[in-house]
C-alpha cells in the first residue's frame, strides 16, 4: 500500500482534475467554433456590402461615361483582398482587373457563392451584384485567406490558452496534493522509519527525517527546537531538569542557561498552538524542577 503515492490513491481529486480539464477543453472548443463562425459570417457580409458599394460607385461613373475611374477603382480593390473584378455594362463596356478567371460566375445576379480554387482548395467568395444605375453588373472574387488566417490565429491562441490553463490546474492540484501528502507524515513513513518514530499523543517525531508532526500536520521547527522536543519526548511524562536539558540540547554551548530553555519552550508552545489551540499544553512546566512532555497521564 505504501508503494503507491498518496496523491494517486486520492481518486476524487484525480476525477475533479479530469472534469475540469475536459470542461475547459469543451468550453474552449465551443468558443472557438462560434468565434470562427462569427468571423466567417462577418467577413462574408462585409464582402457582399463591399461589392455592392463598388457596384453602386461603378454604375455612377459608367452612367457619366467615365470608364477610366472605374478601372482605377477596380485596380485599388485588386491591390487588397479582391482577386478579380469584372464590370459589365449594357453599353458594351467590359472591364476586367486582377487574375484571369475563366469559369463562369458561380451564381446568378445578386448571388454570393463560396467556391474553392487552386491546388489547396482555398476558399473564395464569388459575388455577382447589379450596378445601381447603368443596368450592368459587377462580379467580384474575394480571397478569404485573411479571415481564415484570423481564425487559425485564434484557434492557435485558444488551444494554447487551454493547454496553459489545464497545466495551471494540474500544477495547483499537484501543489494541493503535495500539501496533503506532507501532512500525512505517519502514513508516509517507511516501515523502518515507523519503527523508530516516537508517538506521544498527537505528537509524532520521525528521527530518521528530523521531522515532527502534531495532530497530523507538520511542525516547522528549527534544529534547536527539534532537539528540545526530542529530549522531552525521549521519556514522555518524566520531568527533565534544566541541567539535563542543557546538556542534551545545548551540549556545545557553555553559555546557554535557563533563559534559553524558557525561550525555546515558549517558541515550541507557540508552534504547537498554531496547529491546535491546546497545543501549548503538550509541554508542561514543573515549577522548581523543570519540564515534561504531557503524555496524557
Amino acid at each position: 500500500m505504501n508503494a503507491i503515492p498518496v496523491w494517486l490513491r486520492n481518486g476524487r481529486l484525480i476525477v475533479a482534475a479530469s472534469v475540469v480539464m475536459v470542461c475547459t477543453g469543451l468550453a474552449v472548443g465551443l468558443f472557438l467554433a462560434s468565434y470562427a463562425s462569427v468571423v466567417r459570417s462577418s467577413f462574408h457580409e462585409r464582402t457582399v456590402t463591399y461589392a455592392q458599394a463598388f457596384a453602386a460607385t461603378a454604375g455612377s461613373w459608367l452612367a457619366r461615361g467615365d470608364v477610366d475611374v472605374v478601372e482605377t477603382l477596380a485596380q485599388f480593390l485588386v491591390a487588397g483582398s479582391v482577386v478579380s473584378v469584372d464590370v459589365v455594362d449594357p453599353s458594351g463596356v467590359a472591364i476586367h482587373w486582377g487574375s484571369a478567371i475563366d469559369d463562369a460566375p458561380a451564381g446568378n445576379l445578386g448571388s454570393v457563392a463560396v467556391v474553392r480554387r487552386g491546388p489547396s482548395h482555398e476558399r473564395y467568395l464569388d459575388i455577382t451584384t447589379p450596378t445601381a444605375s447603368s443596368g450592368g453588373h459587377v462580379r467580384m472574387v474575394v480571397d478569404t485567406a485573411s479571415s481564415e488566417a484570423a481564425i487559425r490565429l485564434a484557434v492557435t491562441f485558444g488551444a494554447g490558452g487551454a493547454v496553459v490553463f489545464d497545466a495551471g490546474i494540474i500544477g495547483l492540484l499537484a501543489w494541493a496534493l503535495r500539501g496533503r501528502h506532507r501532512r500525512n507524515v505517519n502514513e508516509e513513513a517507511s516501515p523502518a522509519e515507523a519503527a523508530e518514530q516516537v508517538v506521544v499523543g498527537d505528537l509524532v517525531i520521525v528521527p530518521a527525517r528530523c521531522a515532527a508532526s502534531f495532530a497530523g500536520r507538520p511542525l516547522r521547527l528549527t534544529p534547536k527546537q527539534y532537539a528540545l522536543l526530542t529530549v522531552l519526548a525521549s521519556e514522555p511524562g518524566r520531568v527533565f531538569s534544566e541541567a539535563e536539558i542543557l546538556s542534551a540540547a545545548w551540549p556545545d554551548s557553555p553559555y546557554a542557561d535557563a533563559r534559553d530553555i524558557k525561550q525555546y519552550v515558549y517558541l515550541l508552545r507557540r508552534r504547537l498552538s498554531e496547529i491546535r489551540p491546546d497545543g501549548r499544553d503538550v509541554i508542561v512546566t514543573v515549577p522548581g524542577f523543570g519540564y515534561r512532555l504531557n503524555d496524557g497521564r
Partner: protein
Amino acid sequence: MRQARTAVAIAVVMLVGGLACIGQSENSAFPSVEQRLAGFADRMRLGLSIASVAAFSPTLSDARGHAERLIALLRGDPRDPVPGLISQAELFADWILARSFDPEVRRTLLGAAANVQGFLRLAVEAVISANRDRGLANATEDLLRVYTYLLAAWAQPVDGIVVPGLSTLLRAFDAPVTT
C-alpha cells in the same frame, strides 16, 4: 541717342511679348477657373467613391490601402504632379482674394472656399486615424467620417439646407460638372 532708341525698342518688344504671354496664360496655356473647379470636383468625386467603398472593406489591410490612397488624394502625392485637394482649395481661396469681386459675392465665395478647406482638413484627420487603427471596426468608423466630411465639403443641399461648399462654388462659376 541711338542706344536710347535701341533700349526703347527692346523695352517695347518685351512689354508686348509679356502681355502676349499673359493673354495666352489667361486663355489656353493654363486651365480656366471653371476648368480647374471641374477638375477639383472630379477628384472630390473620386475621393467620395473611394471612401464609400473603403468604409465596407472586408479586412483591415483593405481599409488601410484605401486610406493611403485617400491621404494621397487629399494631401498630394510626391509622384503625382497634381497637388492634393487641400492645396488646391487653398490656391483657389488665394485666387479669390487676388481678384476683384462684388463684396457680397467675394464674402460668399471665400466662405464657401473656407468651408471646403475645413471639411477637407477634418477628412484628412479622420483618414490618418483610419490608417493607424488596429481594428477593422474603428477603421470603418473613421472611413465613414471621411465620407461624411467629403460629402459636407461637396455641400449638396437637402431641401435647401446646406453649409456652403464646393457645389456653391461650382454654381457661382458655372463649372462644367454635373452635381
